[in-house]
């Protein structure tokens, strides 16, 4: 049941999932397979809210292909038995298309979703949790935080960042002023920005302190995806995309001539309009940050069940899940942890978990992280 407008869920839920993106809906599906009752997904906007806010033209990096019948689940599927590639007829869905897949999945899997419910704070309340929203306070036995970080753009503390526009705030590259646009940061979002600008007829100059476009790390979480490299290869002809390595931008300053982009080695570049900041994203856990501990990289510290080390009963799913330096930041990675969370909750409720066997069979249940030591799981 997908509810917009009026509130349809009870004041107390067994499990409250915050965020109706791929992580929230995916873990909800597993809980449904376990027949756990009173599970609700609470979404501040609409299903796929963050994904719908991607810049026009941005697409999923991982390819979708309906290999499900051979046990090779579509890399972008949130369940072992669905395929956005088949449903959408598209290999690299854009934000609108993927959000449509998510909405269809929520309907087909009969997941309870309450839209327009912004959870602003979380408080322990005895054995339960109190979820504070602008529409009242509700309680739950367990909370699964499933908010992606696209909604939390980070400027990395760059002085003068207010003179720029963050990638996460761009909707259409055609709307960016100027014929030549500087992009600060050369990882996925930076290169996506450059390609989007080029497709909008603008020259793009990418500045990065290193040269990530040359990094061929075997972990796709740490290097540009083949899809991006392919787009870059075919997209930097006319107008050109210029990649400037070893450009460590330390500040932005404005005067009558324009915006000066200053580098640590004394170089500077003059921009007519606001540069694009491709400096990453903060944590989607910000509204509940008091209930997580964080490692030096700013990632939440989790138990082996992806539960907050600071507050039992609060779980995390999605792209910020990490263990021992390994990032589960793609859908095909973090979906392998849905069943881990579901099993932990089911065990505490005394619910039979034999229904999870199919998740093992479909490579959707990674509970032995020792394989990560040889990079086999990632």
């Amino acid at each position, binding site marked *: 049941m997908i509810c917009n407008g009026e509130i349809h869920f009870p004041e107390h839920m067994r499990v409250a999932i915050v965020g109706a993106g791929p992580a929230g809906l995916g873990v909800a599906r597993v809980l449904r397979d376990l027949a756990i009752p009173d599970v609700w997904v609470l979404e501040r906007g609409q299903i796929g809210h963050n994904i719908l806010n991607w810049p026009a033209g941005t697409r999923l990096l991982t390819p979708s292909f309906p290999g*499900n*019948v051979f046990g090779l689940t579509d890399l972008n599927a949130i369940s072992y*038995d*669905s*395929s956005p590639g088949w*449903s959408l007829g598209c290999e690299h869905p854009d934000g609108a298309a993927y959000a449509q897949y998510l909405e*269809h999945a929520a*309907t*087909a*899997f009969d997941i309870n979703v309450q839209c327009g419910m912004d959870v602003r704070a979380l408080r322990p309340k005895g054995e339960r949790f109190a979820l504070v929203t602008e529409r009242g306070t509700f309680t739950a036995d367990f909370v699964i935080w499933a908010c992606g970080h696209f909604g939390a753009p980070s400027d990395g503390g760059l002085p003068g960042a207010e003179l720029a526009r963050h990638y996460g705030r761009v909707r259409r590259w055609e709307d960016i002023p100027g014929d030549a646009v500087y992009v600060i940061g050369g990882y996925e979002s930076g290169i996506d920005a450059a390609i989007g600008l080029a497709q909008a007829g603008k020259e793009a100059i990418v500045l990065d302190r290193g040269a990530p476009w040359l990094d061929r790390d075997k972990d796709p979480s740490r290097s540009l995806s083949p899809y991006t490299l392919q787009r870059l290869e075919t997209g930097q002809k006319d107008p050109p995309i210029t990649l400037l390595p070893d450009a460590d931008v330390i500040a932005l300053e404005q005067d009558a001539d324009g915006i000066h982009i200053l580098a640590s080695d004394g170089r500077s570049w003059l921009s007519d309009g606001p540069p694009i900041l491709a400096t990453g994203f903060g944590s989607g856990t910000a509204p509940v940050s008091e209930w997580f501990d964080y490692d030096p990289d700013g990632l939440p510290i989790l138990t082996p069940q992806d539960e907050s080390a600071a507050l039992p009963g609060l779980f995390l799913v999605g792209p910020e899940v990490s263990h021992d330096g390994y990032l589960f930041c793609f859908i095909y990675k973090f979906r392998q942890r849905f069943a881990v969370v579901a099993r932990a909750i089911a065990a505490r409720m005394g619910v039979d978990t034999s229904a999870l066997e199919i998740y093992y069979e479909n490579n959707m249940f990674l509970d032995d992280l020792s394989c990560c030591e040889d990079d086999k799981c990632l």
Partner: protein
Amino acid sequence: MAPSRVLVAFDQRVNAQMTHGLCANGNPGSRLSLQTAGDPGDIGFGIWGDFEATGA
């Protein structure tokens, strides 16, 4: 008839199941029967599953 892995196709509103080979009657997971093919252009979502077919 032995269960077989099939794809159940739904229309764009995910409230009507369409045919794509074998097709379920009722909710996902229900028993199957062969039906007349619908318009592939209306397909909005699909679910793979091991369902028991009941007729031809």
